[in-house]
């Protein structure tokens, strides 16, 4: 640290009244320091980001955000109440660091109403805390938003929509954050093409992450007789996701319900698995997911 202080001289600080003028970093031991932005070239900043943890939002002034950062990122449980309302976390992960990070961040923040608190853990990941936890269209809207951001910034992102958290004690908020983040990380690793993950959808991915190759191969072979028939697999997936409701699934697929009924029967005939039964459906769902695993 002394060497850095010596190297950057007046541009090095541990505190500042104008924190927004500095890039802030933290060592593995928790020591925090800043270097004036004007002093650093992009390469130097990148190098420091590689060596130290880069605190993206340390310059924020909003006390509510500060509380959230303190609990979730600094694991400080001495904070009094963070929120009294139930909340939901929407975690995000960017595949690349946006070259125009500030604009990207502003665009993301601008996309949500004021009820969402944005917390950037670093330049690639963070979460949105949503206080208005209602929203049936949430997953679809998030998918559209993620695709729009990709189209505008050429940065791909994945999102994880967590469950509603009723117990908002700091320890539960932190625990939930850490658990969901772990799950999200496993999901991204296993199904990188997925834009939006939800808890029910991510559980099988977690199971697969701990399963042996042989097990996954075995599950995959359950539907091998139809593995080349993309249309049939798509139909069966829609049928399962519509809670085994032929009418709903056929609307989703824009096909006549008799056509879908025929496809379901064909699937049963060719695989020998009764996908109409609960147990059969679970088995087929897991088998379908294995085809999406990297």
């Amino acid at each position, binding site marked *: 640290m002394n060497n850095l202080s010596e190297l950057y001289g007046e541009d090095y600080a541990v505190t500042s009244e104008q924190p927004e003028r500095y890039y802030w970093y933290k060592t593995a031991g928790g020591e925090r320091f800043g270097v004036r932005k004007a002093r650093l070239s992009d390469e130097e900043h990148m190098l420091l980001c590689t060596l130290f943890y880069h605190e993206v939002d340390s310059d924020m002034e909003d006390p509510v955000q500060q509380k959230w950062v303190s609990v979730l990122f600094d694991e400080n449980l001495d904070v009094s109440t963070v929120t009294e309302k139930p909340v939901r976390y929407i975690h995000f992960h960017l595949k690349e660091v946006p070259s125009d990070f500030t604009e990207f961040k502003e*665009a993301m923040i601008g*996309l949500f109403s004021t009820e969402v608190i944005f917390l950037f853990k670093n330049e690639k990941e963070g979460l949105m805390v949503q206080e208005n936890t209602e929203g049936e269209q949430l997953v679809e809207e998030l998918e559209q938003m993620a*695709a729009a951001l990709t*189209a*505008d910034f050429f940065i791909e992102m994945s999102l994880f929509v967590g469950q509603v958290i009723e117990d908002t004690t700091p320890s539960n908020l932190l625990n939930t954050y850490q658990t969901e983040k772990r799950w999200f990380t496993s999901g991204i690793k296993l199904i990188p093409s997925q834009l939006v993950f939800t808890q029910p959808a991510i559980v099988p991915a977690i199971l697969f992450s701990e399963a042996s190759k042989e097990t996954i191969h075995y599950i995959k072979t359950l539907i091998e007789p139809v593995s080349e028939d993309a249309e049939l697999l798509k139909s069966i997936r829609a049928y399962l996701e519509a809670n085994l409701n032929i009418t709903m699934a056929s609307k989703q697929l824009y096909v006549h319900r008799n056509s879908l009924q025929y496809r379901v029967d064909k699937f049963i005939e060719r695989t020998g698995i009764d996908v109409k039964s609960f147990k059969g459906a679970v088995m087929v769902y897991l088998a379908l997911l294995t085809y999406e695993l990297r």
Partner: protein
Amino acid sequence: MAEIKLNHIYKRYDNKFEAVKDFNLDIQDKEFIVFVGPSGCGKSTTLRMIAGLEDISDGDLVIGDRRVNDVAPKDRDIAMVFQNYALYPHMNVYDNMAFGLKLRKFDKKEIERRVMDAARILGLENLLDRKPKALSGGQRQRVALGRAIVRDPQVFLMDEPLSNLDAKLRVQMRAEISKLHQRLQTTTIYVTHDQTEAMTMATRIVIMKDGVIQQVGSPKEVYDAPDNVFVGGFIGSPAMNFLRGQLEDGYFTMNDVRVKVPEGKMKTLRDNGYTNKEVLLGIRPEDIHDEPVFIESSQDTKIKAAIDVAELMGAETYLYSKVADQDFIARVDSRSDIHSGQHIDLALNMNKCHFFDTETEQRIY
């Protein structure tokens, strides 16, 4: 506007899996190129490499006259349209289309001009104040197209943009995208798994399987002269029929069924050493005829068929049948009034058939 060159492009993942292998293609300015193939064939991966969303493991990607492998995606002057409507749910149509331009610091007047132009082209003028939620699927995808058009890029990249639409709307939007291309003349690369989309929209089609290009050609070329069994079976609906048999004395024989092979084709087969060997005969459903006049004049390519299922499609009927225990489909005029269970005569138009090697699956003739 731009030419795009893909030279020996590879995509390898960390686990050594090769998603794209030695992809070579020169795309001319103003072309509408369609990448088509089953899921996992590498078509989207190739598109994503052109966009810069995936690194290129090996090879050169040239857009215009510069190599762009290491150029940031936003500096490649391309615009993408995705399967998911890429829209900001909380912005109205106007702001959705203007957003990308605002980001690129266009002045307000220019933004307005471009958005209004695109809205006019896409018929969105009356919807500019609406939020995506208040739009139909087709309108949403039109806004997503508008977001790409306003950018006036060198290249449009479209990744299955119509997959979320119902069949009727898909046909309509297909025509709209084609018209849009005729009007804007922007080089376009379009990815789909739907061979009908590929056939109806493309200047040239690139058919892929397992990360490898199988054939590149105009829709007519790939339909009339498929390079291999995969292309023959993939392009066309219903698919090309493949019958396994032997070449004997100028005839293609399947057990006790014999059909005469035209002399020109037979000569090529003979010259290539296929006499008395097993081959695959590929014939399209519409090249199997039930008209008495045709059968009369084609006695040596006549077969007897028991119709398993006759599917009335409107103007045409699909006949599902078997010859020498091998399935095939014939596409005949609905006026024929043929029913399931009937036994009828059919004749193959052997001038239109193809022969494929049973091992390499490549076309011999």
